[in-house]
């Protein structure tokens, strides 16, 4: 074997090992992040953290109960906006898709998906906060809901499209009208994928901070109903992290751990559901 071939082999092995290192580095970042959060935040997670309201500035203790509930309310309301529009819009694209309207819709959804979250915040401020003269959970939910629409829409379309033709044709041969077919056969067949998409969309917006800065604003107390400003986990993390108080830093780590933990759980759940396959075996 000539020296040249030996050299080429060496280069090959070397470069390929290098790529392996790249992959290792990339993946280990995830574990580093988790590790830091667990290490720094783990010790601050206690019952008080989950049940108490924040204490005045400079006093130790207190918790983030209102931020946790606030985030939950925001996500609930955001889903009420984002999921129906995305879901039914996705049905339209998948089932009635031959019109020009459909490609316009797809394009608009992709556009909306690419809008930076801070710009969505500006939009929500002018649409909801200014007219009602109030920072509110509703405004925050509006911003988050908008961000959920494109993900839900495209995924619904994709998964509905993946349902095999024979299912549709079978239903129609039995006399079902188109909408009945969709409602009773196609959607149930694709439900895993759609559920996954909704979960992923939720996980994506659960961590969004920027659009909440000028919509949900912030609240040291419980937020009544939907028309008042509300605390939320990501915004509280941001405020506490840039503050000078050690106690608040501790709480920011703990909140970060809780937030990331929730998001990762939703992601893992979603992907596990998806990997179990669609409800009907493909032909």
């Amino acid at each position: 074997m000539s020296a040249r071939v030996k050299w080429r082999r060496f280069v090959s092995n070397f470069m390929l090992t290098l790529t392996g290192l790249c992959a290792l580095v990339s993946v280990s970042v995830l574990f580093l992040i988790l590790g830091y959060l667990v290490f720094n935040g783990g010790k601050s997670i206690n019952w008080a953290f989950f049940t108490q309201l924040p204490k005045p500035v400079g006093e130790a203790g207190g918790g983030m109960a209102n931020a946790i509930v606030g985030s939950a309310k925001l996500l609930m309301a955001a889903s009420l906006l984002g999921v129906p529009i995305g879901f039914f819009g996705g049905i339209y694209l998948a089932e009635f898709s031959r019109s020009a309207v459909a490609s316009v819709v797809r394009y608009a959804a992709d556009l909306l998906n690419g809008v930076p979250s801070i710009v969505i915040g500006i939009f929500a401020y002018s649409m909801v906060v200014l007219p009602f003269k109030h920072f509110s959970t509703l405004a925050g939910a509006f911003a988050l809901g908008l961000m959920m629409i494109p993900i839900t829409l495209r995924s619904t379309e994709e998964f509905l499209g993946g349902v095999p033709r024979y299912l549709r044709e079978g239903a129609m041969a039995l006399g079902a009208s188109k909408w009945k077919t969709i409602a009773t056969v196609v959607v149930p067949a694709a439900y895993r994928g759609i559920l996954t998409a909704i979960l992923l969309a939720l996980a994506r917006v659960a961590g969004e901070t920027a659009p909440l800065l000028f919509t949900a604003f912030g609240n040291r107390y419980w937020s009544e109903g939907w028309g008042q400003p509300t605390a939320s986990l990501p915004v509280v993390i941001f405020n506490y992290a840039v503050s000078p108080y050690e106690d608040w830093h501790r709480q920011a780590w703990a909140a970060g751990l809780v937030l990331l933990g929730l998001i990762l759980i939703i992601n893992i759940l979603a992907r596990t559901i998806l990997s179990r396959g669609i409800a009907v075996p493909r032909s």
Partner: protein
Amino acid sequence: MATAKTTLPNAGPVSGSRSFLSRLRDGDEIARLTTMVFAATVVLITLLLVYELWTDSALARAKFGLHFLVTRVWDPNIDQYGALPFMYGTLVTSAVALLIAVPLGIGAAIFLAELAPPRISDTLQFFIDLLAAVPSVIYGLLGVFIIVPLMRTVIFPALNEPLGFMPFFKGPSYGVGFLTAGIVLAIMVIPYIISVSREVLLSVPSDQREAALALGSTRWESTWKVVVPFAKTGILGSVFLALARALGETMAVTMVIGNTPTISASLFSPGDSIASVIANQFTEATGDVYLQALVELGLVLFLMTFILNGLARILIVVTTQKGSGVPV
């Protein structure tokens, strides 16, 4: 034989053949119209968003015109606003992010697509997808408490001592700055580069690889000289995607960039980005021109990401279609 009364399934609305009202009585037409309304809402919202951005920046656009894009001054005191320092900050931090993330990302993607056995590849991809799900504020948290001190104590001395003569590495360093923000952004965009590049590489038809190997190339040579060039437009698309994400990133950047509208060649200098300044100053912009200048910045950012996303999609589609043999 008794014939059961069967209703023939509808073949769908044939245009012009039945009156609208009778078509409406069909469940199908209602379903189509209802779902179309929801779908149309998406278009409506998007149009409204662009419209709002355009009209809410009208005063500022009228006052500064295209000069806005090249003015350095940002002074609320005298109502003079220019986008240049923020565009600079946005572009520099994104460039640094790409410089770090692209080699790492493509390397990892090559490993996942070419070398790793499918199960390991899928498992690792799973973790990479999880990394993509980490919210921005968490990256900010890590940036503030870990990367900023690291920058001050380790990275700055390491780069400044040998390379301090170059304008890029001139001190002083405060811990925060372009480089710190760039590093945080790099971590955030690597998953996008990896997942898309991996998919694109996987879609390269195996006959390309095999032909190269049959001709006697090493694994690396077949990958680097045949597969990757074949997939290069798609990989470029993933880079554009990553870039679009980096441009719009707000929280992680604002926590580590230093919040000073500065244009400086030094990577250790503090600066500001478009998203970051909007987040900081939007709620306090008194005076109409001030607020509208911020909205105009939002418009600029929107346009930048819009163009990039469009280009990215075209590139990725072109590559995957090429791979599957569908004529482009």
